[in-house]
């Protein structure tokens, strides 16, 4: 009985979120808008607890699969629940819930009208459902479907406000993301032709026997995946759409896109590379070196671009490009510490960047100032919000006691384990650059003398609660990382196909 519940829960999380998404417009018609919003928050909270439960089960009893509709693989779609799924489900829940809570306060005012707000809820939940789908699926075509759903939903929530700049940004995003989808689809086609399968475990079996016969084809196929997912997850130099899209959207959209949406594609890439193709093959191909190199370039270049921005949200958007570099660097390192670092950074960047974008959104909205150079005295006007921003900054820089340090530490260990001293230098330099682009915001907000007396801004308690929730997550992961770290390292172990933890 318990097992049946557990198995069904995997698909239930996705299905429940999908159905909630579709009843949102109806619900907002027949009930007060608040009710729909809180219902969405509650469903996300349930998804989070489902994720935690599943992760616990996976840690206790090992991985398991679920055949959708009762059709076993390779004919049906198979959901494959391992530590990777558990980890990403928790990440999604822990970040999406506070973002929704934050959005619920003034959504109608932000997007313009009640019906648009209802559609925003639908799209938001669709995006979350697609990400959960990416976390649990074990099937390549299913990945493609989920990637498409996520892409369309993210494009739409960028355009939520419907003003000229955000529509332009959306168009740019849509074009590039579609090209990315094309590459992904081509890659899937290649893998299907090579192996005759869409189920990732079956592909892995086929490839392990026959990959040496078609090294070039495999190479091309993996490059397609790298470019396709690289565009979608803003891997430098394929990032050009991101700064516009993430800085023009409303705060909850920016937070959602920067913290979770791009991570979904990274999880998909991880699954294709390490599950479908397999760690043994992938680490023998130079593709990991390319990822390491691109990751390092992204860390430095993204941070340098961020330094040059005066608009707060653009600076945060470029910071995302830099931080995505850390994640790719870990994937490229391809050892246990590197991948653990990748997972930890997926979690810590998701929580941290969500916090930063939400806090920045509140700062910009209540003071009407979007440029860092105008922000003198904001700290005195809204101490809790800017305080939360400070916590996010310290975590992003990688100060101990905050979650960012835990992931950076693992990445450093991973780099040293590969003897990659350049990566050590880049990681440390990236932290310094992060300090250089985030600390001036705090200096401006707290310590510069304002030109005129600052207005006291009252941020609503619900939004403060959302910010504080993220602050608590960041600090507790930073202080007591045991549980998540174990899950992350299990996930890395699962991907690498190692038997026991060293």
């Amino acid at each position, binding site marked *: 009985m318990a097992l049946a519940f557990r198995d069904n829960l995997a698909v239930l999380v996705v299905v429940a979120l999908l159905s909630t998404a579709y009843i949102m417009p109806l619900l907002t018609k027949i009930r007060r808008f608040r009710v729909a919003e809180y219902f969405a928050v509650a469903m996300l909270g349930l998804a989070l607890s489902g994720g935690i439960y599943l992760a616990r089960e996976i840690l206790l009893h090992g991985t398991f699969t679920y055949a959708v509709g009762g059709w076993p693989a390779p004919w049906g779609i198979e959901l494959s629940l391992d530590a990777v799924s558990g980890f990403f489900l928790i990440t999604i829940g822990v970040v999406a819930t506070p973002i929704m809570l934050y959005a619920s306060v003034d959504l109608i005012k932000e997007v313009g009208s009640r019906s648009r707000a209802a559609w925003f809820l639908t799209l938001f939940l669709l995006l979350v459902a697609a990400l959960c789908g990416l976390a649990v699926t074990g099937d390549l075509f299913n990945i493609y479907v989920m990637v498409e759903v996520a892409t369309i939903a993210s494009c739409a929530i960028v355009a939520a406000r419907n003003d000229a700049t955000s529509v332009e940004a959306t168009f740019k995003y849509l074009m590039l993301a579609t090209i990315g989808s094309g590459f992904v689809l081509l890659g899937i086609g290649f893998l299907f032709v090579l192996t005759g399968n869409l189920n990732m475990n079956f592909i892995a079996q086929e490839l392990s026997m026959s990959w040496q016969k078609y090294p070039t084809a495999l190479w091309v196929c993996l490059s397609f995946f790298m470019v396709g997912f690289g565009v979608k997850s803003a891997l430098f130099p394929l990032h050009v759409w991101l700064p516009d899209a993430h800085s023009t959207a409303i705060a909850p959209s920016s937070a959602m896109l920067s913290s979770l949406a791009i991570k979904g594609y990274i999880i998909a890439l991880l699954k294709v590379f390490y599950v479908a193709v397999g760690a043994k093959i992938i680490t023998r191909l130079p593709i990991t070196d390319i990822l390491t190199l691109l990751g390092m370039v992204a860390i430095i270049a993204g941070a340098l671009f961020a330094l040059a921005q005066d608009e707060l949200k653009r600076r945060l958007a470029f910071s995302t490009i830099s931080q995505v570099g850390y994640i790719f660097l870990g994937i490229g390192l391809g050892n246990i510490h590197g991948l653990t670092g990748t997972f930890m950074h997926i979690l810590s960047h998701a929580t941290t960047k969500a916090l930063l974008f939400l806090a920045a959104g509140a700062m910009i909205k209540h003071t009407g100032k979007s440029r860092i150079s105008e922000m003198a005295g904001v700290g005195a006007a809204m101490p809790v919000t800017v305080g939360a921003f400070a916590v996010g900054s*310290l975590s992003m820089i990688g*100060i*101990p*006691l905050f979650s960012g340090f835990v992931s950076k*530490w693992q990445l*450093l*260990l991973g780099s*040293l*384990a590969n003897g990659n001293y350049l990566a*050590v*230098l880049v990681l*440390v*330099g990236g*932290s*310094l650059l992060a*300090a250089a682009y985030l*600390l001036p915001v705090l*200096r401006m907000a*707290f*310590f*510069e*003398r304002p030109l005129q007396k600052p207005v006291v801004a009252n941020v609503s308690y619900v939004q403060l609660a959302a910010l504080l929730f993220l602050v608590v997550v960041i600090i507790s992961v930073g*202080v*007591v*990382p*045991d549980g998540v*770290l174990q899950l992350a390292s299990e996930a890395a172990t699962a991907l690498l196909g190692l038997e026991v933890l060293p």
Partner: protein
Amino acid sequence: MSVGVALVLASIVITTIGAIWVAAIPGEAKTQRHCIVVGAALVSAAMVWYLLYLGLGSGTYPAFRVGIASLSLDLTLDPLGLTYGILASTLWVFASIYSVGYMEHDTKQRQYFTFFLVSAGITLGIAFSGNLFTFYLFYELLTFATYPLVVHSGTKDALEAGRKYIRYSLVGASFILAAIVMLWTLTGGVLDFSSIPAALATASSGQLRILFFLFLIGFGVKAAIMPLHGWLLSAMVAPTPVSALLHAVAVVNAGVFGVLRTVYSVFGVDLVKSLSVRPILLVLCSVTIILGSLIALKQDVLKRRLAYSTISQLAYILLGAFILHPLALAGAMLHMIFHSTLKIVLFFAAGIVAEETGYLKVSELGGTGRILPVTMGSFGIISLGMIGMLPLSGFWSKYYLMRGSLAADAWILLVVLLLSGLLNALYFIPITVSAFTGTSDLKQRRKTKALLFMLVPTVIIAAFGVIFGLYPGLTLPLVDAVVAQFFSL
């Protein structure tokens, strides 16, 4: 949990609670705030003193550990940490009383005192950390907690100084982080001070040299080894109690303490000896000592002169540590204690002069001795201690440093120490002489109401300088314990 562990934790936590309390009460409640600040500092210091009593009495030191095995938060007492802890927490009490007077008319008192107390707790965290990770954690936090104090006035200069401070400190901390990661891979995950030296024994000397210099550059920033001292001078724009406490006692000593930990707890005496890096280190320190003193000679702004003097004096402590001889280490520990107690008086006195007369430059100080006899008197007497004259405490630390240099057959260091002493005399004595013989064109003294709050701590610490000079044996149990910890005699 034993009493000791509880006290170690409580001494850190109580200042943090005090800080939160200060931040929570309204800005107008001055008296209440002052009571909390002084009270928290006092209670915390009392706890550390009791720990000293426990530790020296029984020779056992409690340890406290949380977190996962690899990166645990680990607080342990040892004689070296206790010395730094006692020094910082005691001087913090006096500095908090002084601050009450000095910040009387400041509009951002709440912010000031919050971070003032937070820094106190973090400094104790550095003192009591039992592994490198914990050390790095508190060391990094100290930068962020003291930044608001440095930029307190909010002027352009202050913000620029703050920027410089953060840049230097974070770059230094990155070196330390790189060193810790490298150490981790060399030792296979051992970061405990008590077990690192043994775990390092298998590493090659080339790797160890790189490791050593990574640590040295990292800690050298806060220890203001030339040429890493730039931040210290700009940071003198901070309010005087901050300059006094952070830039003569807590922050710079945290750097020095880090170097001591590196040499004695991470590598151990034998390993450092085998690396044969000693000549470079001694030259580095000698250059800093002489250059610091020479540049101090040319400074007209009093606080800048004191800052260069600090740079030079910190190098004395490092010199003592690098000689790798028991007597020299004793000298280094004594100099850490005595330099802090002496230098804080000089800063306090400079602050009082600036508040009462508005004079900041040495050339303006003529005749101030007659207006502020007690202040300038303390300044004069204590500056003699700084030079190293008997019967003041500064003599004894230099005495041990010289004996250590001779015992290690490095007589050239004797010349360095004597020459620097001479330079100290050249830049300190004229100040006192002109203060008491010159004439002042001061029309009106400001008559600060809170003068007493500033004067009393100054005079008390100055008295310590004399008492330690007359009875140097008072500090011996502690210094002996430190030496015995690292040298098997």
